[in-house]
């Protein structure tokens, strides 16, 4: 049996592995943008909700509505992080592709140290506004129940100057 130096082998292999680790394949550099663009166009099966504007009804995929609600609440330096958004959609009327939005449930994490009730109420308002904006000027958002579920808290940095809640800059405090 040949005697080999494991240390030498390990050193060569480590150098080789490091070389490979540093490498970016040209094929990926060439392809990544088009691959990503094709992936992001992938359609996820989803329900549709009915919106209304002056021209009539339109259908909106629920992932889009979810993204609008998330974007409204998940603002930089905000007090909440959206963990989930669930839509309850009624059955479509005859010959319609989209049902009526009946309820939206937003599952949240709030920053540790924030006043949960006040922050949640602001979040509810921001979510309702986002639903209203997404489903058109003629959509009656009062018919939609917006439920909030504060499911978690996340660490907050050191306390400093007074904070705004979700979109609080645009809204007056609820109480």
């Amino acid at each position: 049996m040949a005697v080999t130096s494991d240390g030498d082998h390990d050193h060569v292999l480590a150098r080789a592995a490091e070389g490979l680790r540093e490498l970016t394949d040209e094929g990926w550099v060439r392809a990544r943008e088009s691959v990503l663009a094709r992936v992001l166009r992938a359609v996820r099966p989803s329900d549709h909700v009915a919106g209304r504007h002056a021209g009539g009804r339109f259908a909106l995929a629920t992932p889009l509505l979810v993204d609008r609600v998330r974007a409204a609440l998940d603002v930089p330096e905000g007090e909440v992080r959206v963990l989930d958004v669930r839509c309850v959609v009624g059955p479509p009327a005859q010959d319609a592709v989209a049902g009526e939005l009946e309820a939206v449930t937003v599952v949240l994490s709030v920053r540790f140290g924030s006043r949960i009730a006040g922050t949640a109420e602001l979040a509810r308002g921001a979510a309702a506004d986002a639903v209203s904006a997404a489903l058109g000027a003629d959509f009656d958002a009062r018919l939609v129940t917006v439920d909030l579920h504060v499911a978690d808290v996340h660490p907050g940095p050191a306390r400093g100057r007074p904070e705004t809640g979700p979109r609080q800059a645009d809204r007056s405090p609820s109480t």
Partner: protein
Amino acid sequence: MECDVHHTPSKAAPSSADDERAVDDSELVRRARLGDKEAFGELATRHGTAMYRYARRMLRDDGMAEDCMQDALAAALTSMERFRGESTVRTWLFGILTHTVRRRMRVMTRHPEQELPPEGAVGGPADRADDPAAAAQAHGLLEALELALADLPDLQRACWILAEVERMPYADVARVQATSVGAVRGAVHRARLNLGRRLEPWR
């Protein structure tokens, strides 16, 4: 009632492009799950280079590696809800990729094996312009490694790349390969012996 809340940037909500790098993978998954395509794009950019490196060495074909990347990323995007954080995001993505690579390899067995083109990399050791001799040597070693890797059995090649190149813990490699930690340890050990023999002239 007053809102007793305070204004400080959080890790989850970066305020500048530089801070964006500080956003961890699980935060990007949370956003992507809620429809944030930019967050998914950041995840794909972050892990794409390593994923492609693995796919290309398993398949030895750029076109198929690209197809696998597209399939794997699309599968990740559409199954984002199923990621529950039992593993790291990277391990989860590699698991999906491994599944698509294996599917493609089954197709490949019906076709003649192709040689991995020798060129086609950027940012590797050959780019070290400050020491041309060292760069040439590193380039040669890398070529020899590519050839040696190509001759390894699939499991050895996969485990060695994941463990040694991507520095994945054995438990994560086992999860990605849907096998046991012991099997991974054995495969990496045999891969080291085989590669060591092939790279003997570089000692």
